């Protein structure tokens, strides 16, 4: 029986395991495969994206586990708790920190990411943490259970995890200073109007948002615990009990250093998610595409892409070799109370192609807006960002495939609305604004 070992029980590894089990070893009689999921983080799969809700008290840890504990045995997916120290590809053996080993026939690396640290002085002090692993959450619960123990917190780095951490601390009335390197929140990704609106929304939650601000160092008290931080630009010292480092993530692949598996930022993979070593694959946050498709980045640290890689690799492992060829880009997030969805490509100021033109509409209540990107010469619809209005994935996927033009998309926005019943609709206002703008141009 072929033994598939998957290191990492996040969304990529678990999706892969589930799909391998669907394809092999069903009663239909194919030769079954033995599947082992290895993790040092938790016993059972949980949805990482929900970690914040545990701290906020919306859910318990058990609620974040999509499958009941009997699921794994029933589907013959073996769970192994252990920290992988080393991979020997010659003998197909993995070595655990605890001293034991495991033989594999095929190995999949799905170890995800770890928070970026840029060599700031004091970045490893007590009370300094990322917000990616279950252990980060435990650490936060220890250092910031309430606003008596944690009188002030500082978050370093904009982006999605940063704002989630701000929301988490805010839910316990812990004052937060939020240092963002850019001159507007997440404007490496978001166009100007949206980024500005989110700036205002963050401040409306009484979060001390500092734009164009960098961290110089983190200072320690006599016990090796964080005491304060110093701001690069002004030299200002802000005393704090917790520092959240949320300046992005990098692949979590230190354990592969001494192996023969080729790595750069992440584990280098081809379009088939294969590494340089036969029978070794990598998926999810830790995989680095050597030939990324379309506008996609070499390392996609996104929940959805992790899931999709798992779906594809299951085919390859079960004998139907298949490239990772994702469809139209999409993503979503939530900025405090404002939901965000994106379909297709909409670029911020930086790195925006010359041909990309935007139509932007914002509601007067300052919590809803959309940006539609289109090709300035051909009028082809390229993508949409939407804030505070839910839109239908299926409709935009279709419009992108059909290469609709921007007039069509904005005139037919009604068909794509996914807001709950009785919600106020804004399509007419958007269309009117679009027509006014078209007349001006």
């Amino acid at each position, binding site marked *: 029986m072929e033994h598939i070992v998957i290191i990492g029980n996040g969304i990529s590894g678990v999706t892969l395991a589930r799909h391998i089990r669907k394809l092999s070893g069903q009663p239909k009689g194919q030769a079954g495969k033995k599947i082992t999921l290895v993790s040092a983080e938790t016993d059972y799969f949980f949805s990482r994206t929900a970690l914040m809700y545990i701290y906020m008290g919306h859910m*318990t840890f058990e609620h974040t586990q999509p499958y009941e504990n009997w699921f794994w045995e029933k589907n013959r997916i073996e769970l192994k708790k252990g920290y992988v120290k080393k991979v020997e590809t010659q003998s197909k053996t993995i070595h655990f920190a605890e001293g034991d080993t495991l033989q594999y026939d095929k190995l999949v690396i799905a170890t995800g990411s770890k928070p970026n640290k840029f060599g700031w002085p004091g970045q490893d002090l007590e009370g300094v943490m990322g917000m990616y692993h279950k252990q980060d959450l435990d650490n936060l619960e220890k250092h910031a259970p309430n606003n008596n123990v944690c009188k002030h917190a500082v978050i370093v780095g904009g982006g999605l995890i940063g704002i989630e951490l701000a929301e988490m601390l805010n839910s316990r009335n812990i004052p937060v200073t939020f240092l963002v390197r850019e001159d507007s929140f997440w404007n490496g990704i978001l166009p100007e109007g949206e980024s500005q609106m989110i700036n205002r929304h963050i401040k409306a939650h009484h979060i001390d948002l500092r734009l164009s601000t960098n961290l110089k160092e983190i200072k320690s008290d006599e016990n090796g615990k964080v005491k304060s931080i110093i701001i690069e630009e002004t030299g200002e010292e802000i005393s704090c009990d917790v520092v959240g480092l949320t300046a992005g993530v990098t692949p979590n692949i230190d354990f592969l250093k001494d192996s023969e598996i080729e790595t750069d930022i992440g584990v280098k993979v081809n379009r088939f998610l294969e590494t340089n070593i036969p029978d070794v694959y990598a998926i999810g946050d830790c995989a680095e595409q050597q030939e990324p498709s379309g506008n996609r980045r070499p390392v996609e640290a996104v929940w959805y892409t992790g899931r999709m890689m798992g779906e594809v690799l299951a085919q390859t492992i079960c004998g139907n070799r298949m490239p990772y060829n994702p469809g139209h880009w999409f993503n979503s997030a939530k900025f*405090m109370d404002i939901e965000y969805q994106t379909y297709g490509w909409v670029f911020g100021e930086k790195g925006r192609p010359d041909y990309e033109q935007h139509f932007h509409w914002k509601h007067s209540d300052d919590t809803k807006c959309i940006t539609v990107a289109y090709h300035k010469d051909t009028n082809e619809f390229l993508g949409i960002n939407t804030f505070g209005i839910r839109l239908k994935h*299926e409709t935009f996927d279709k419009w992108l495939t059909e290469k609709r033009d921007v007039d069509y998309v904005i005139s037919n926005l009604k068909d794509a609305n996914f807001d*709950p019943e009785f919600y106020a609709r804004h399509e007419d206002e958007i269309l009117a604004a679009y027509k006014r703008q078209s007349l001006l141009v």
Partner: protein
Amino acid sequence: MNTPKPSMSLTKPEAFDLTTKQRIYVAIGMIGLIILALATFNVTFPYRTIVLSIALLSISIGVVLFANDMYIKKLPGIKNDGVMFKSISSRGLWAWVSGLAFTGFYILLYFKATWLGLGTDGAENTGLVALFDPLSRLLNGGQASQWFVYGTLYTIAILVFGYKFLLKYRHNKYERLRTFSVMFFQLAFAFLIPEFMARLNSDSFSLPYYDLKNIWPLNYYNFEQYRVNSFIEAGDIGLALLIFGILSIFVITPILTFKYGKRWYCSWVCGCGGLAETAGDSFRHLSDKRQFAWKIERWVVHSVVVFVVLMTTAVVYSYLGDDSSKYWLTKNTFLIGVAALLTVVFAWVMIFKREQLAKDAQYGAIGYFVIILVLLAIHFFNGSNLFLFKAETLRQSYGFLIGAIFSGVIGTGFYPIFGNRVWCRFGCPMAAILGFQQRLFSRFRITTNGGQCISCGNCSTYCEMGIDVRAYAQKGENIVRSSCVGCGICSAVCPRGVLKLENDSLKGRINANEILLGNDVDLMDLVNEK
């Protein structure tokens, strides 16, 4: 799985403790409860009108001020912060204390009303019931009963906690409209209209107490002899009400459920649902989401339907005559009618909808159908007693087991332990019948948004009916479940805008994907077409 850790420990995050202001508002509310508790222990108050007003007002004001403090100064949005840490909402000490207190109250209400001060055999009320006499006189002209006390408190609970719900979900128009609706139906239809109708009663004219929105089998007593007699004796109005009661079951309900799903009733109109959605909102995450609970649910709730059908048939049968020359509806025509109706429903499901039912549901349906027909056959061969039991025994057992213990004592008293929809989920025969209609022929479903689900679990956690919504959302599968009451909270709490309650055509209601939108189209075709 899915059980909050009770916060009886000392180390819970203090961040979610009550503030001083909130403590004061709780105290204001407590004044009202203490007055009611003292009255329960037979303290006789002078100036009942004033004391009652103080009690009810202080409860209402306490809740309203508390709600204001919780939500009004925060920006509109999902506000479930600390739910899993607060004692009352995480099966902590306060949850058990209040659960036992509610349960105790229910037991007194149903079985020991005299302890609450109900005057029997024409005697004056004392204690708690007497305290409500002034309000009762104002509304219906007579003195209060224990049910009047209960109805008043029930209505106040829906109104003041409805206000809290409106504030909490003020960003969500669906939730707002729905809450206005349950508040209106409780105040007007369940409380004021029946009281005013009672006022019309005189020596020559009498209608039973009738909450018009309560439909059989939820009001399992609607076709008992005394009620039917009283309807018929009340002339045209009574007959109209009786016909309305029958039409509600066979015509109005199926049409509305076809168009809107069972939510038009369960979470927009029904009183049990109204209390669950308002006063019970703080407990919605406590419902059991395990697959095991789902299996139990399906058997228990459908058994209750079978029980209520048998019981009602027996009761109606017991007072019908044999002589067809006196009245067209005889014992035999009635029984044949019931058997024919059940056969038609059974045959329709088995012929047209069989593939939509799971194996165990099919076996269950066949089993129950056979049991009912056998019981009817026994009657034709043996005569005297229908169904081996006396009709009255059946009715009493149903009233005790289901009407009192299940819907009241456990269903409501145990909100803080089992969640707010235990009764609706496991016990309500009305919900089961509506659910049957919803599952098999409704335009209602909850649709999911392509590949946008992140499996976070907010939807499943906050589903009061214990549906594992996430399991469907992560497969991109429409949610077509008989238990869904369409409260819309899964859609509200979803941080990615993945869920939407929809009425659409019957085509494509039931779908499932192994691979979601966003991936390679060839792969999606390959895997999903199988």
